[in-house]
């Protein structure tokens, strides 16, 4: 294992300490329990937007704490859900009297920990709503699985609900909006290489030089199938087709096209994928009116990408364009 770390046990803490030192203008960081909170929280009268999950997906979630996006993030150990005490602490810190929305990626661990946290928060009289993001079309949504994973769409949901909360929309309204985003967006990812969790010390799965894994999530877990390595254009087709057909998009629909890097793929390559994905969208009559390209929800140093499509409405577009000032996303200000 070749990593820029000191000791595997200290990765999350030391990274968080560096994050706190670098971005004291935007966030307040507590270490025990670990929380990342917007520097001016709680914002009176505003719904607090809170998310969290395992570490290793940076800039998600901590990098999205700030004006116009998240009020707080709870980082867990690498690829491991955070704990209820972290969530409760963060909930208290961001409750400005209008309640708190939990944006939860659909993983068993995250669900159970957030569920326990919301019970504790409600016991303290804080209004809490939860929305589960489950956009990964690579997973069959059936009785026989834990359901679809929450992946790329989480980034877009955090941006859009954050903007709505900034407009002082109510907790039920912001929660409904988040559910709308989840209903109108889908993603699919692929990997060229696996990734190594520091305390494991070796790659999560072996991927020969001439093969790639289609349908991976964001935790280095193996995907749905393994195929021979193919050019970027073919990869874009493999990801776009299932996403488009699952969303049931119609010609003329406005969409946001998001090509996400998994951590180890340079922007140069992501733009090659974007080029083809946009071409496929156009060929299907879709109007790509907004786009995002870059490593926003990563899987440590995994090479690969995911594609997310979100069907836009005028409301969603305006919220997407609204000002945001976070470590990972910043515009309009």
């Amino acid at each position, binding site marked *: 294992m070749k990593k820029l770390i000191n000791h595997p046990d200290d990765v999350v803490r030391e990274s968080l300490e560096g994050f706190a030192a670098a971005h004291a203008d935007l966030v307040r960081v507590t270490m025990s329990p670990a929380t990342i909170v917007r520097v001016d929280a709680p914002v009176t009268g505003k719904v607090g937007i809170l998310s969290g999950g395992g570490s290793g997906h940076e800039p998600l979630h901590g990098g999205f704490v700030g004006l116009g996006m998240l009020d707080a993030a709870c980082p867990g150990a690498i690829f*491991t859900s955070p704990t209820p005490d972290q969530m409760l602490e963060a909930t208290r810190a961001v409750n400005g009297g209008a309640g708190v929305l939990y944006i939860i990626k659909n993983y068993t*661990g995250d669900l*159970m*920990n957030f569920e326990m946290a919301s019970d504790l928060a409600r016991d303290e009289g804080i209004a809490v709503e939860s929305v589960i993001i489950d956009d990964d079309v690579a997973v069959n949504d059936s009785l*026989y699985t*834990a359901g679809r994973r929450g992946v790329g769409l989480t980034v877009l949901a955090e941006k859009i609900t954050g903007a709505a909360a900034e407009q002082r929309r109510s907790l039920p309204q912001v929660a409904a909006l988040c559910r709308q985003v989840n209903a109108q967006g889908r993603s699919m990812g692929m990997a060229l290489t696996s990734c190594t969790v520091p305390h*494991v010390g070796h790659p999560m799965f072996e991927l020969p030089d001439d093969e790639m894994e289609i349908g991976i999530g964001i935790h280095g877990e193996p995907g749905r199938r393994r195929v021979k390595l193919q050019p970027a254009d073919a990869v874009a087709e493999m990801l776009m087709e299932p996403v488009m057909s699952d969303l049931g998009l119609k010609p003329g629909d406005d969409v946001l096209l998001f090509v996400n890097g998994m951590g180890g793929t340079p922007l140069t390559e992501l733009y090659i994928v974007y080029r083809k994905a946009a071409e496929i969208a156009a060929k299907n009559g879709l109007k790509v009116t907004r786009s995002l390209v870059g490593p926003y929800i990563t899987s440590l140093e995994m090479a690969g990408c995911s594609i997310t499509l979100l069907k836009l409405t005028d409301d969603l577009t305006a919220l997407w364009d609204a000002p945001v000032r976070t470590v990972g996303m910043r515009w309009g200000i």
Partner: protein
Amino acid sequence: MSNTVITLDEVVAWILAYARAISENRAMLTELDAAIGDGDHGANMDRGFKAVSAKLQAGGTDISQVLKTTGMTLLSTVGGASGPLYSTIFLQAAQACAGKTQLTLQDWIVMMDAAAKAVVARGKAAAGDKTMLDALIPAVQALKDAAVAGLSLADALRASAKAAEDGMEATLPLIARKGRASYLGERSAGHIDPGATSTYLLFKTAAAALAQPQVQARKW
């Protein structure tokens, strides 16, 4: 002659022994989870039980309190799916034995039964879904069967460890329906479930640490 009751010291010794077993088997649990999950089960459990160990070094004053401390510590240190689930086991067991200064086989059955039911309620999984329940449910059933058959407490604990082991091994061919492993679909078959393995260790250490002859019980 083994004892007919479980003492406070033994409960503490059991949890400390389990913490050691987790630490010793950390790499193995991680390997199992890397095959069908995300490779963090060993680290998750070890992080939690190291914290529990530190809290219990001084022993305890009350069985229910020791179990509750264990559950609360796990809740704030483990994370993942196993954090809330293992926490639930200890918190339920604590509730079910509140006020008792020693535990009979009947008490132990009531505690483990409550724990298993609460894990089902929290995780919404069932037997055969390839989870820790595949070790937990048979272990509880074996305790009940042992009581009906009139076995001693020590023999009942051994029977539950054996049932948990069999249950763990029986997860090998199963296709996971809950947790991360379910994303793999049929590719999850052919691997033993990591959570079932850590649960087997829980019952294995219980059989070794609980209901010991008095002389031995003081040795830890």
